[in-house]
């Protein structure tokens, strides 16, 4: 188990570890994230499968940035979660994993979490002057007409269109 090897190498690094339905998860503090990435890379976790984030609106720190790694030799998988607060930056992994480039741009676009050292951190899916970060929990499902909001400040349906109500 990779979690045991991490514990043996860096005692006390993991804030939390758990397994659920066969998925191993490690939670590491932001400051020591790169140490763990170095170690994982040496251990053979060289395929960064996915990178995304989860917004826990009322929690402090507010976001979890979630990385999924796969060891292609042993087919072992690991999920690493790094809690980050509003406005805090994470070190970019682009220099080591090229695939992180667009993923980090997407997380910046959708959640507004900056990545330090990213060569060109700009929005990926939304356009450059789009207001806000859509996947935040306090961003309404009906964002109004995005082409009009800047002029009028109102939503075309008065905020009435929500699937939750």
């Amino acid at each position, binding site marked *: 188990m990779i979690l045991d090897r991490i514990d043996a190498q860096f005692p006390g690094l993991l804030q939390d570890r758990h397994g*659920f*339905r066969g*998925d191993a*998860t490690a939670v590491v503090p932001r400051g020591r994230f790169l140490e763990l990435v170095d170690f994982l890379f040496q251990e053979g976790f*060289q*395929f*960064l*499968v*996915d990178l*995304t984030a*989860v*917004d826990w609106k009322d929690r402090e720190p507010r976001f979890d940035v*979630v990385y*999924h790694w796969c060891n*292609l030799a042993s*087919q072992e*998988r690991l*999920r690493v979660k790094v809690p980050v607060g509003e406005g805090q930056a994470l070190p970019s992994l682009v220099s080591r*994993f*090229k*695939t992180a*480039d*667009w*993923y980090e741009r997407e997380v910046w676009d*959708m959640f507004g979490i900056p990545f330090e050292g990213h060569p*060109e951190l*700009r*929005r*990926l*899916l*939304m*356009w*450059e*002057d789009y207001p806000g970060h*859509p*996947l935040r929990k306090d*961003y309404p*499902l009906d964002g109004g007409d995005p082409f009009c909001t800047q002029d009028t400040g109102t939503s075309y349906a008065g905020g009435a269109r*929500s*699937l*939750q109500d």
Partner: protein
Amino acid sequence: MLNAHTPTAALDGDRMIINLGPSHPITHGTLRIILELEGEFIQRATPEIGYLHRGVEKLGENLSYQQFIPLTDRLNYCSSMQNNVGYVEAVEKLLALKIPRRAQLLRVIVSELARIGDHLVCIGINAVDIGAFTAFLYLFKQRETIYDLFEMSSGQRLHTSFTRIGGLMRDVPPEFVPLCGRFLGECEAAVDEMEALLTRNPIWHDRTRGVGAMSVEEAVNWGYTGPCLRASGLAQDLRKAQPYLGYDEFDFDIPVGTTGDVFDRYLVRAEEMRQSLRIIRQALDRLEPGPVIVDDYKVALPPKEKVYTRMESLIHHFKLVMHGIEMPVGEVYSATEAANGELGFYIVSDGGKSPYRIRVRPPCLPIFSSFDLKVKGRLIADAVAELGAMNIIAGELDR
């Protein structure tokens, strides 16, 4: 839309800017590539994506688990069955649910049919883009049969929504198995025909060999999966590596290439179609009558005749529609081998009716992010071949 990042700002004066897209015959969807040219040669390619962004992940946070299934059809619309299967596999992993044998086998059959359909489109369109029209026509005849089979089973050709959490929407009709059996032979012959037209065709060689070659190390670093990774020489296939849906019971091979260029990707896809036919043949042999959805009314809707005649079934129906499935609190990442590569769903559940967060890991997003590297220093014509062989599906790319 002009902004600070438009490449005109970095021009040295000699380069010409060409926009491929957002609406261009080779983009097959809506995406834009800004090419900076010196003569015919590409100096830089800047992909701009997001034209088909529907906010699927945001919508998913506001829909129930069942209601998300139709949105998965619209991810990779060339192989919607595989998205249906991939999504419900993730939810079933979260629920720790085991589905009936017949449902499992039918899921394998429709997934493999969808894989063949996707590869047919990819190769056919790639050939058309390069200028070989005939192969496309031969192949699309087969895709028509695949769509007939989908229509027969789900009522829809393209947006199938065939799966349900715990099984399938309904059983396939009796005509399905004979037509599928006939299709196996016809498709095999069509793949042979296609290979006769392309594999030893000198023009096809000129246009595809050496274009977009990539080493395994680089491909892994860029997050490649599926045929594009296997063409580079790594036999990574989730059906073998981390078997799901009982794929470990089937006898099939994983084709690999050596260089990862457009030609190798074509060969890998062609052989994968044959292997998929093998899997379907075995699955059809093992198909036995039985239920196609779990007999648990806390997860799957009771049959309609029961709902109309029995009190408990009516209550179950009502509870399931209004309150949804009782989900455990937790998070899962589940990946399946889709036609383009690893299709992953990451679901965070807080026990509510809707997922707290649902993330789709589209296989072609990391692949497309390496486009600049692949076409730098090459001709525009190579960019056309490369884009087709990457099999970029904008619906999946932008979500």
